[in-house]
């Protein structure tokens, strides 16, 4: 299935309603069972598919930019006695494996974006579960800061995936129950194998929800809590909102995409794509106000919005391409000048930094090989240097006799763009070697020639102009010939050295096990649980455990 666009707008939402009242916003989920297009499933009971989540992702992002004054986002349901039934099961059962994996990754990124908004934009999320929150529905609740559940003697929260579907709650449910909400592991175990879930006071006692209110008092209590949450979150932004306008793009016949500052070229035969970022000749605005005046057209922001869009299309729509060659062209000084603006603490530039951080994390969890190439006229500098650090391999031309090829660290490489493991890319690269990290950061603002960069441990290989073409060609061809599955696993292991976080557990442990289960006959075989769900027969399992 091809996804035409990953963008949306509240005017076009089919499944959500976004209202904003002062510093409190409300997101009402009211999923349309069919959207008029031909689909092999019906979205009953506020269950969701990728299009429902694309709208949610848009809302979460848009709230930060267009409604920066909002301090509480209430997430609730427009349906009676049902909050959300999670991902639609016939949708999952009818999807191929790769789509399921992409779907889960996208929804996980959206849940993490909710938590990120709370942590870095002071926008708290309050889940008002006015009905059953099951599976992915409860996982959506878990992404919120607070969960209140209606006590109508029937509405429960549940993770019925294991007992009913023979799969995992794959959107962070298991991780958040124990890691975030600190539910005791034995109770979590009981809860996670109980199809009907837990309701009322017991749900509070288990710490699965924060409070439960009688139906008659529910609305009032939610409003009270929303007000309290907003009041507890101080610091109103000093600037006007920014319109979260669509990303301008021209789409080529081959799936290539041309954005204002980024060009994606696809070679399906070679299973490779080239992502080339071209910096403007002039760095443009020199302060945050001037940058904000340009809004989403401010080129650093526009560039990373383009990268975000390109990555989503590569994941969902250009699956046979496994190797991405990344270049940044231009004057490194332009990138450093932009970093000087980005580094400020104005609301707009702070938001831009956080946005760029989230897009860079998308690079980290994309199941594609990234090879960064620095040739003549290359500008892996500051924020853009993160792309070289995020790459699986970084080739830098040793151009001793020419004008030289440079990379340039900036102070932003020292903390602005934490990875999912909580460390910077430099810290992850030089794990437990603070001296090596500092040696790079001490040179912030300097243009480092290839040999210097190589000495600092920033370069994988530094061929000279004679070797360059062949070395690079061989590396790319060789990479493109290896098992894509093995590479995905290898990269996911090597990219995230260092500590575990909720995020690394979700993308590592939870997703990896889920993706394994998604391939197993016990889930997807003809008698597997996912296939049998909703049918007349019980699943038949192969009982071996190792």
């Amino acid at each position, binding site marked *: 299935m091809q996804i035409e666009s990953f963008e949306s707008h509240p005017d076009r939402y089919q499944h959500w309603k976004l209202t904003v009242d002062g510093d409190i916003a409300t997101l009402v989920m009211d999923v349309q069972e069919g959207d008029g297009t031909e689909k092999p499933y019906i979205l009953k009971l506020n269950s969701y598919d990728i299009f429902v989540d694309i709208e949610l992702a848009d809302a979460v992002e848009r709230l930060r930019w267009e409604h920066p004054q909002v301090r509480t986002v209430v997430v609730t349901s427009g349906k009676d006695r049902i909050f959300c039934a999670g991902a639609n099961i016939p949708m999952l059962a009818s999807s191929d494996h790769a789509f399921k994996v992409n779907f889960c990754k996208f929804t996980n990124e959206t849940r993490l974006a909710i938590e990120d908004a709370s942590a870095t934009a002071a926008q708290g999320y309050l889940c008002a579960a006015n009905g059953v929150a099951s599976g992915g529905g409860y996982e959506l609740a878990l992404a919120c800061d607070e969960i209140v559940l209606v006590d109508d003697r029937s509405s429960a929260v549940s993770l019925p995936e294991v007992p009913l579907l023979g799969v995992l709650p794959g959107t962070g449910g298991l991780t958040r129950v124990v890691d975030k909400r600190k539910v005791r592991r034995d109770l979590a175990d009981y809860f996670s194998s109980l199809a009907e879930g837990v309701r009322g006071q017991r749900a509070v006692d288990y710490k699965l929800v924060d409070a439960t209110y009688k139906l008659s008092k529910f609305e009032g209590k939610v409003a009270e809590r929303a007000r309290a949450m907003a009041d507890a979150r101080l610091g109103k932004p000093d600037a006007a909102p920014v319109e979260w306008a669509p990303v301008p793009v021209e789409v080529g016949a081959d799936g290539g995409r041309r954005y204002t500052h980024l060009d994606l070229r696809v070679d399906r035969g070679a299973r490779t794509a080239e992502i080339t970022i071209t910096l403007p000749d002039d760095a443009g605005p020199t302060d945050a106000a001037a940058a904000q005046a340009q809004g989403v057209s401010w080129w650093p922001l526009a560039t990373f919005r383009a990268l975000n869009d390109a990555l989503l299309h590569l994941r969902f729509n250009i699956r046979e391409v496994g190797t991405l060659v990344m270049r940044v062209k231009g004057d490194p000084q332009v990138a450093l000048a932009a970093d000087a603006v980005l580094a400020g603490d104005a609301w707009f530039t702070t938001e831009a930094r956080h946005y760029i951080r989230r897009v860079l994390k998308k690079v980290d969890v994309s199941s594609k090989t990234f090879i960064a190439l620095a040739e003549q006229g290359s500008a892996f500098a500051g924020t853009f240097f993160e792309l070289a650090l995020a790459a699986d391999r970084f080739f830098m031309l040793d151009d001793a006799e020419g004008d030289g090829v440079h990379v340039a660290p900036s102070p932003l490489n020292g903390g602005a763009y934490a990875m999912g493991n909580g460390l910077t890319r430099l810290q992850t690269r030089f794990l437990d070697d603070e001296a090596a990290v500092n040696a790079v950061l001490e040179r912030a603002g300097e243009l480092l020639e290839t040999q210097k960069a190589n000495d600092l441990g920033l370069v994988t290989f530094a061929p000279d102009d004679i*070797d360059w073409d062949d*070395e690079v060609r061989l590396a790319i061809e060789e990479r493109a010939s*290896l098992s894509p599955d093995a590479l995905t696993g290898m990269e996911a292991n090597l990219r995230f050295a260092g500590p575990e976080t909720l995020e690394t557990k979700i993308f590592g442990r939870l997703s990896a096990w889920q993706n394994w289960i998604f391939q197993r006959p016990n889930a997807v075989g003809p008698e597997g649980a996912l296939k049998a769900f909703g049918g007349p027969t019980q699943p038949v399992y192969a009982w071996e455990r190792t």
Partner: protein
Amino acid sequence: MAAIDYDSKIPNNVDLGNDRRLQRALEAWQPNFIDWWMEMGPEGFQQDDVYLRTAVSVDRDGWAVFGHVKMPDYRWGIFLTPLEDDRKVNFGDHMGDPAWQNVPGEYRNVLRRIIVTQGDTEPASVEQQRMLGHCAPSLYDLRNLFQVNVEEGRHLWAMVYLLHRYFGRDGREEAEALLARRSGDQDSPRILGAFNEPIDNWLDFFCFTTFTDRDGKYQLRALAESGFDPLARTCTFMLTEEAHHMFVGQTGVQRILTKTAEIMKSGDPKKQGAIPIDMIQKHINLWYSLSLDLFGGEDSSNAATFFGAGIKGRDREHRLDEHTALDQYYAMPKPGADGKVAVEDVPLRRAMNEVLRDAYVEDCEKVVKSWNRALEGAGCDLRLTLPSRRFHRQQGLYEGLNYDPDGNWMTAEQWAARRDEWLPSKADRDYVRSLMTKAVTEPGQFADWIDPPARGINGQPLEFEYVKFCRHGA
């Protein structure tokens, strides 16, 4: 840096004069090669003028130009047979694709390994033979030894060319390593076992050039089929030179046989300074079995990979009818725990090492047959045989098992008790060495244990001064 006239210094047909990559690589490598040659090449003869053939082009007139030359001044060249228009990969999974003019990324590592393994044998044999000149049986033989040595050096160049031209930095590092390993060195030995055995007498040398260089012939033939076109063309040209090396070996052994047969007519050869036939048989057993090991495992996934990838074909693959080798099986004898051998069907691609070994064995049988004809012609009733291919193997299915030369299994103790009946004993080696204590350096003269050849080199008489000693010269 002074410009170097590459094309005159290094004869080549690879446009070296315009290839910066090659020039840069060779600038560093070439002096190291000369250092290696002076240190590990023929000991004691570097200042002498040797009547050598040099390849200056791949034409009929150019590939063998004769003249006296000091070995360090030998013009080691780089030659590939000319490019063939529209050559295709002619076997394996890529059959029908255009032959690769560049290394395909997915096969970079296997190709490099194959080229390094082949390349490593070339300097190794020079190292093994470096002291032999001091006990040469004639100037004719001394010259042949040096001819073999400089051409092995050129074959090293040929492999280094491929590494330098097509494998970038890794290739340069591997090329350096080819000069750093040493035959028989404890810490840094040559890659293959047979190339770490010392060759300190001429019977070993002739057996080596008969059997081990013949392995080289079959490896080169298999690689001459390669879908990686530069490798195929390099190996095709190397084969033209390799033929002389096998000629040196085969006629060398034959000249010893006829001499021994002659002497046997008047009594015990050992008492008259000749090499007895059974002692020659033991040397054949040794070098044949060591050379069989070089083909690799009988049932080999590597072999299947190389064939499937179109990197290494069969002997004269282009003459065969079927080139996928799929859905076909090779009836392969395999030994069980008790040494008993049972035939098992192995997918043909996995058996490619054995297929190549079969062609080699057949070729070796012809050599032995011609030696036996020579014995017959010399009036000797004794005959030579090739041992079973299970005998004395240190590679593959028969490694660690003990078989006599007829292929009968036995215990390690039984085998050890009879070892000296089948392989050169210390006494045998000492005896052979005792015949070769000093070189025969008079033109036209030959040692007592070997006959003169039928004719000289390049139409020159046997009395020709094939090596001019310049001990007191400049």
